[in-house]
């Protein structure tokens, strides 16, 4: 197999995985980093690990959980190393698909601490159970439930405070 065909094969593989998982990875990564460019870097690093480590997955659920775990770890490491203020410009929000109408709620969501956003995302959007989130994030099931409970209360209080229905 030549280099060119290997490159094409890798590109097709990545494009397929990107189509399938990019939204999910962006949500998880952005929840932690709150910055489009950093989130993109984290996703790129995750896919590089996906290609170079080439782990064997039992099924697509295993593959998805592996990607979430890696993007969470990569994003956390990036967060530890950087000290950047996060300002969400209209242009940035548009480029990640958030329109002007949703901007207020999105800004509010981004004010929640990252640890709560990640569990909310995995539970309500990705549909994981508390037991599965505990394995992915590396905290106990009780902690996952507590975070969910607290996040729901925070969300409700904040939305009520700014008068959002």
């Amino acid at each position: 197999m030549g280099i060119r065909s290997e490159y094409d094969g890798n590109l097709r593989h990545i494009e397929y995985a990107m189509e399938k998982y990019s939204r999910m990875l962006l949500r998880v990564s952005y929840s932690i980093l709150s910055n489009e460019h950093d989130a993109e870097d984290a996703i790129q690093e995750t896919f590089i690990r996906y290609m170079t480590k080439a782990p064997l997955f039992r099924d697509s659920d295993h593959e998805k959980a592996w990607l979430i775990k890696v993007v969470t770890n990569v994003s956390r490491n990036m967060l530890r190393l950087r000290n950047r203020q996060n300002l969400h410009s209209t242009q940035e929000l548009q480029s990640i698909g958030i329109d002007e109408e949703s901007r207020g709620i999105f800004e509010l969501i981004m004010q929640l601490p990252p640890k709560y956003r990640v569990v909310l995302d995995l539970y309500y959007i990705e549909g994981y159970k508390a037991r599965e989130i505990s394995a992915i994030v590396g905290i106990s099931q009780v902690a996952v439930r507590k975070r969910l409970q607290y996040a729901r209360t925070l969300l409700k209080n904040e939305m009520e405070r700014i008068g959002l229905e």
Partner: protein
Amino acid sequence: MKRKYINTYVGVMKEMSLSEEAKQRICKNCARYSTLHKIKNGRYVVTASTKEKTTDN
């Protein structure tokens, strides 16, 4: 009661997506890096090819 707030949250977060440009950039970078990584690790042998001479040469 809290459900409507969660629905609002889910609705907004589901709108998020990477731009096509960003997707393409990441795909190309990853494909290039992973191909080079495999070459570097000796999985593929790079064979030199001789350049064909043209009449100009």
